[in-house]
Protein backbone atom coordinates (compact mmCIF):
# COMPACT_ATOMS: atom_id res chain seq x y z
CA UNK A 1 0.00 0.00 0.00
CA UNK A 2 1.59 3.28 -1.04
CA UNK A 3 0.90 6.65 0.45
CA UNK A 4 -1.54 8.80 -1.52
CA UNK A 5 -0.13 11.66 -3.60
CA UNK A 6 -1.76 15.03 -3.07
CA UNK A 7 -3.85 16.10 -6.04
CA UNK A 8 -3.25 19.49 -7.59
CA UNK A 9 -6.95 20.28 -7.45
CA UNK A 10 -6.83 20.00 -3.65
CA UNK A 11 -4.06 22.65 -3.43
CA UNK A 12 -4.31 26.41 -3.60
CA UNK A 13 -1.88 29.29 -3.17
CA UNK A 14 -1.21 29.97 0.50
CA UNK A 15 -1.58 26.34 1.64
CA UNK A 16 1.18 25.67 4.13
CA UNK A 17 3.53 22.70 4.16
CA UNK A 18 3.81 21.13 7.60
CA UNK A 19 7.06 22.42 9.12
CA UNK A 20 9.92 19.91 9.29
CA UNK A 21 12.89 20.04 11.65
CA UNK A 22 16.25 18.83 10.38
CA UNK A 23 18.93 18.58 13.10
CA UNK A 24 22.46 19.16 11.83
CA UNK A 25 24.88 17.70 14.34
CA UNK A 26 28.54 17.20 13.47
CA UNK A 27 27.69 13.51 12.94
CA UNK A 28 24.95 14.51 10.48
CA UNK A 29 27.42 16.70 8.59
CA UNK A 30 29.93 13.86 8.46
CA UNK A 31 27.23 11.49 7.18
CA UNK A 32 26.16 13.94 4.48
CA UNK A 33 29.77 14.62 3.50
CA UNK A 34 30.38 10.89 3.19
CA UNK A 35 27.23 10.32 1.14
CA UNK A 36 28.24 13.07 -1.30
CA UNK A 37 31.99 12.31 -1.42
CA UNK A 38 32.62 15.72 0.09
CA UNK A 39 35.65 15.56 2.37
CA UNK A 40 36.05 19.31 2.65
CA UNK A 41 37.41 19.94 6.15
CA UNK A 42 35.01 22.87 6.50
CA UNK A 43 32.27 20.32 7.21
CA UNK A 44 33.95 18.26 9.97
CA UNK A 45 37.24 19.79 11.19
CA UNK A 46 36.49 22.26 14.00
CA UNK A 47 40.06 23.54 14.26
CA UNK A 48 40.10 24.23 10.52
CA UNK A 49 36.73 26.04 10.70
CA UNK A 50 37.98 28.19 13.61
CA UNK A 51 41.12 29.06 11.64
CA UNK A 52 38.72 30.67 9.13
CA UNK A 53 37.04 32.66 11.94
CA UNK A 54 33.93 30.48 11.85
CA UNK A 55 32.22 29.45 15.11
CA UNK A 56 31.79 25.81 14.11
CA UNK A 57 31.93 23.45 11.14
CA UNK A 58 29.63 24.53 8.31
CA UNK A 59 26.56 22.85 6.83
CA UNK A 60 27.17 22.16 3.13
CA UNK A 61 25.24 24.61 0.94
CA UNK A 62 23.88 21.93 -1.36
CA UNK A 63 22.54 20.10 1.71
CA UNK A 64 20.07 22.99 2.02
CA UNK A 65 18.67 21.98 -1.37
CA UNK A 66 18.55 18.34 -0.33
CA UNK A 67 16.60 19.21 2.82
CA UNK A 68 14.08 21.32 0.90
CA UNK A 69 13.57 18.54 -1.67
CA UNK A 70 13.00 16.06 1.18
CA UNK A 71 10.51 18.45 2.80
CA UNK A 72 8.50 19.03 -0.40
CA UNK A 73 8.38 15.41 -1.56
CA UNK A 74 7.53 13.98 1.87
CA UNK A 75 4.46 16.19 1.86
CA UNK A 76 3.31 15.78 -1.75
CA UNK A 77 3.66 12.00 -1.97
CA UNK A 78 5.29 9.29 -4.08
CA UNK A 79 3.94 10.21 -7.52
CA UNK A 80 5.12 13.80 -7.26
CA UNK A 81 8.11 14.58 -9.48
CA UNK A 82 10.25 17.61 -8.74
CA UNK A 83 11.16 19.35 -12.00
CA UNK A 84 12.96 22.35 -10.57
CA UNK A 85 14.54 23.51 -7.34
CA UNK A 86 16.08 26.96 -7.30
CA UNK A 87 17.57 28.08 -4.00
CA UNK A 88 19.53 31.05 -2.74
CA UNK A 89 21.80 31.09 0.28
CA UNK A 90 20.99 33.76 2.84
CA UNK A 91 23.14 32.77 5.83
CA UNK A 92 25.42 29.97 6.94
CA UNK A 93 24.29 27.18 9.26
CA UNK A 94 26.63 25.37 11.62
CA UNK A 95 26.91 22.04 13.37
CA UNK A 96 24.51 22.02 16.30
CA UNK A 97 21.88 24.06 14.45
CA UNK A 98 18.45 22.63 13.72
CA UNK A 99 17.11 23.72 10.35
CA UNK A 100 13.39 24.35 10.29
CA UNK A 101 11.91 23.83 6.83
CA UNK A 102 8.81 25.91 6.11
CA UNK A 103 6.89 26.66 2.95
CA UNK A 104 3.65 27.30 1.20
CA UNK A 105 2.01 26.81 -2.17
CA UNK A 106 2.80 29.80 -4.40
CA UNK A 107 0.93 28.71 -7.52
CA UNK A 108 -0.85 25.78 -9.15
CA UNK A 109 -0.68 25.46 -12.95
CA UNK A 110 -2.83 23.00 -14.84
CA UNK A 111 -1.65 21.47 -18.12
CA UNK A 112 -3.39 18.95 -20.40
CA UNK A 113 -2.43 15.76 -18.54
CA UNK A 114 -0.71 16.97 -15.39
CA UNK A 115 -0.36 19.93 -13.07
CA UNK A 116 2.60 21.78 -11.65
CA UNK A 117 2.56 23.04 -8.10
CA UNK A 118 4.99 25.85 -7.27
CA UNK A 119 6.23 25.98 -3.69
CA UNK A 120 7.98 28.81 -1.85
CA UNK A 121 10.25 27.22 0.76
CA UNK A 122 12.76 28.43 3.31
CA UNK A 123 15.12 27.05 5.93
CA UNK A 124 15.51 28.87 9.21
CA UNK A 125 17.60 28.52 12.33
CA UNK A 126 15.55 30.34 14.92
CA UNK A 127 14.67 33.65 13.22
CA UNK A 128 17.65 33.52 10.86
CA UNK A 129 16.73 32.60 7.27
CA UNK A 130 19.52 30.41 5.87
CA UNK A 131 18.09 29.60 2.43
CA UNK A 132 15.06 30.36 0.28
CA UNK A 133 13.81 28.24 -2.59
CA UNK A 134 11.26 27.98 -5.33
CA UNK A 135 10.36 24.39 -6.16
CA UNK A 136 8.24 23.18 -9.07
CA UNK A 137 6.70 19.77 -8.71
CA UNK A 138 4.68 17.86 -11.29
CA UNK A 139 1.62 16.06 -10.00
CA UNK A 140 -0.77 13.75 -11.83
CA UNK A 141 -4.01 15.66 -12.44
Amino acid at each position, binding site marked *: *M*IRPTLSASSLKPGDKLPAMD*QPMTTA*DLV*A*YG*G*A*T*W*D*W*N*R*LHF*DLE*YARSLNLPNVVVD*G*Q*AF*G*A*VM*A*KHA*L*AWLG*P*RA*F*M*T*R*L*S*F*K*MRAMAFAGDTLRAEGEVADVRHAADHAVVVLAQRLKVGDRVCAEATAEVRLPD
Partner: protein
Amino acid sequence: MSLLNDELRSWIGREVHFPAREELGRASIRYFALALGDDNPLYVDEDYARAAGYPSVIAPPTLICETCQYAHRAPDRHGYIGHAWELPITGCRLIRAGNDYEFMRPVLPTDRISVTWTLEDIVERKSSRGGTQLFVTSVARYRDAAGALVAVNRETIVYQPLSPSP
Protein backbone atom coordinates in the same frame (compact mmCIF):
# COMPACT_ATOMS: atom_id res chain seq x y z
CA MET B 1 39.42 48.27 -8.07
CA SER B 2 38.19 46.04 -10.85
CA LEU B 3 38.47 42.30 -10.37
CA LEU B 4 37.37 41.35 -13.87
CA ASN B 5 40.03 41.45 -16.57
CA ASP B 6 40.62 40.00 -20.05
CA GLU B 7 42.44 36.97 -18.71
CA LEU B 8 39.44 36.08 -16.55
CA ARG B 9 37.01 36.79 -19.40
CA SER B 10 38.89 34.24 -21.50
CA TRP B 11 37.71 31.55 -19.07
CA ILE B 12 34.06 32.11 -20.03
CA GLY B 13 32.89 29.21 -22.16
CA ARG B 14 35.44 26.71 -20.86
CA GLU B 15 34.22 23.17 -20.37
CA VAL B 16 35.30 20.14 -18.41
CA HIS B 17 33.80 16.67 -18.70
CA PHE B 18 33.69 13.91 -16.12
CA PRO B 19 32.63 10.58 -17.66
CA ALA B 20 30.51 8.10 -15.74
CA ARG B 21 32.74 5.67 -13.86
CA GLU B 22 30.04 3.25 -12.76
CA GLU B 23 26.31 2.92 -12.19
CA LEU B 24 24.90 5.19 -9.48
CA GLY B 25 23.91 2.13 -7.43
CA ARG B 26 21.41 1.36 -4.70
CA ALA B 27 23.97 1.76 -1.92
CA SER B 28 24.71 5.38 -2.91
CA ILE B 29 21.02 6.17 -2.90
CA ARG B 30 20.38 4.51 0.47
CA TYR B 31 23.44 6.17 2.03
CA PHE B 32 22.27 9.63 0.89
CA ALA B 33 18.73 9.07 2.19
CA LEU B 34 20.05 7.74 5.50
CA ALA B 35 22.43 10.69 5.91
CA LEU B 36 19.49 13.08 5.53
CA GLY B 37 17.20 11.07 7.80
CA ASP B 38 14.89 10.74 4.79
CA ASP B 39 12.56 7.78 5.33
CA ASN B 40 10.83 8.12 1.95
CA PRO B 41 10.39 4.45 0.85
CA LEU B 42 10.87 5.38 -2.84
CA TYR B 43 14.63 5.41 -2.19
CA VAL B 44 14.95 1.99 -0.52
CA ASP B 45 11.85 -0.15 -1.03
CA GLU B 46 11.71 -1.81 -4.47
CA ASP B 47 8.09 -2.98 -4.18
CA TYR B 48 6.90 0.40 -2.94
CA ALA B 49 8.66 2.24 -5.77
CA ARG B 50 7.13 -0.14 -8.37
CA ALA B 51 3.66 0.31 -6.85
CA ALA B 52 4.14 4.06 -7.20
CA GLY B 53 4.85 3.63 -10.92
CA TYR B 54 8.66 3.61 -11.10
CA PRO B 55 10.77 0.82 -12.66
CA SER B 56 12.77 0.43 -9.39
CA VAL B 57 13.85 2.52 -6.44
CA ILE B 58 14.81 6.05 -7.50
CA ALA B 59 17.38 8.57 -6.31
CA PRO B 60 16.47 11.65 -4.26
CA PRO B 61 16.46 14.46 -6.84
CA THR B 62 19.50 16.45 -5.72
CA LEU B 63 21.85 13.47 -5.26
CA ILE B 64 23.33 13.51 -8.78
CA CYS B 65 23.87 17.29 -8.58
CA GLU B 66 26.43 16.78 -5.82
CA THR B 67 29.77 17.60 -7.37
CA CYS B 68 32.40 15.41 -5.73
CA GLN B 69 31.15 11.97 -6.79
CA TYR B 70 32.35 12.44 -10.39
CA ALA B 71 35.93 13.28 -9.50
CA HIS B 72 38.77 10.79 -9.29
CA ARG B 73 41.69 12.50 -7.64
CA ALA B 74 43.37 12.95 -4.28
CA PRO B 75 41.92 15.58 -1.93
CA ASP B 76 43.45 19.06 -2.03
CA ARG B 77 44.69 20.74 1.16
CA HIS B 78 41.11 21.56 2.14
CA GLY B 79 40.07 17.93 1.71
CA TYR B 80 38.10 18.74 -1.43
CA ILE B 81 38.05 16.31 -4.38
CA GLY B 82 35.32 17.79 -6.59
CA HIS B 83 35.36 20.00 -9.65
CA ALA B 84 36.86 23.48 -9.28
CA TRP B 85 37.88 25.91 -12.05
CA GLU B 86 41.02 27.17 -10.24
CA LEU B 87 40.40 30.67 -11.59
CA PRO B 88 43.36 33.07 -11.39
CA ILE B 89 41.79 35.15 -8.60
CA THR B 90 43.65 35.77 -5.35
CA GLY B 91 42.70 37.38 -2.06
CA CYS B 92 39.06 36.36 -2.27
CA ARG B 93 36.87 34.01 -0.34
CA LEU B 94 34.33 31.89 -2.17
CA ILE B 95 30.69 31.95 -1.11
CA ARG B 96 27.91 29.89 -2.67
CA ALA B 97 25.15 32.24 -3.79
CA GLY B 98 22.72 29.60 -4.90
CA ASN B 99 21.85 26.70 -7.16
CA ASP B 100 19.13 26.28 -9.73
CA TYR B 101 18.43 22.62 -10.48
CA GLU B 102 16.22 21.28 -13.25
CA PHE B 103 15.28 17.62 -13.28
CA MET B 104 14.13 15.87 -16.47
CA ARG B 105 13.29 12.41 -15.14
CA PRO B 106 13.70 10.26 -12.03
CA VAL B 107 17.22 8.82 -11.78
CA LEU B 108 17.56 5.06 -11.27
CA PRO B 109 20.32 3.10 -9.53
CA THR B 110 21.25 1.55 -12.92
CA ASP B 111 21.90 4.96 -14.48
CA ARG B 112 25.45 5.84 -15.50
CA ILE B 113 25.60 9.61 -15.11
CA SER B 114 28.30 11.78 -16.65
CA VAL B 115 28.63 15.52 -16.20
CA THR B 116 29.90 18.41 -18.29
CA TRP B 117 30.63 21.71 -16.55
CA THR B 118 30.59 24.94 -18.54
CA LEU B 119 31.77 28.27 -17.16
CA GLU B 120 28.80 30.30 -18.33
CA ASP B 121 29.53 33.83 -17.15
CA ILE B 122 31.61 36.05 -14.89
CA VAL B 123 30.00 39.32 -13.81
CA GLU B 124 31.38 42.02 -11.55
CA ARG B 125 28.96 43.74 -9.18
CA LYS B 126 29.21 46.30 -6.44
CA SER B 127 28.89 44.78 -3.01
CA SER B 128 26.69 46.31 -0.33
CA ARG B 129 29.88 47.10 1.59
CA GLY B 130 31.17 49.39 -1.15
CA GLY B 131 33.72 47.10 -2.83
CA THR B 132 33.30 44.93 -5.87
CA GLN B 133 32.80 41.18 -6.08
CA LEU B 134 32.69 38.63 -8.86
CA PHE B 135 29.73 36.35 -9.58
CA VAL B 136 30.87 33.22 -11.38
CA THR B 137 28.08 31.15 -12.89
CA SER B 138 28.71 27.58 -14.01
CA VAL B 139 26.33 25.07 -15.51
CA ALA B 140 26.61 21.33 -14.98
CA ARG B 141 24.69 19.14 -17.41
CA TYR B 142 24.13 15.55 -16.30
CA ARG B 143 23.53 12.93 -18.99
CA ASP B 144 22.70 9.24 -18.96
CA ALA B 145 24.48 6.48 -20.89
CA ALA B 146 22.37 7.25 -23.98
CA GLY B 147 23.41 10.90 -23.84
CA ALA B 148 19.99 12.17 -22.76
CA LEU B 149 19.91 15.08 -20.35
CA VAL B 150 18.65 14.05 -16.89
CA ALA B 151 19.43 17.16 -14.84
CA VAL B 152 20.95 20.64 -15.08
CA ASN B 153 22.61 22.49 -12.20
CA ARG B 154 23.26 26.21 -12.60
CA GLU B 155 25.50 27.32 -9.74
CA THR B 156 26.64 30.79 -8.78
CA ILE B 157 29.71 31.34 -6.62
CA VAL B 158 30.66 34.78 -5.32
CA TYR B 159 34.35 35.74 -5.09
CA GLN B 160 34.45 38.30 -2.33
CA PRO B 161 37.67 40.24 -1.59
CA LEU B 162 38.97 39.51 1.91
CA SER B 163 39.59 43.22 2.48
CA PRO B 164 37.17 45.11 0.22
CA SER B 165 38.52 48.30 -1.29
CA PRO B 166 36.17 51.26 -1.71
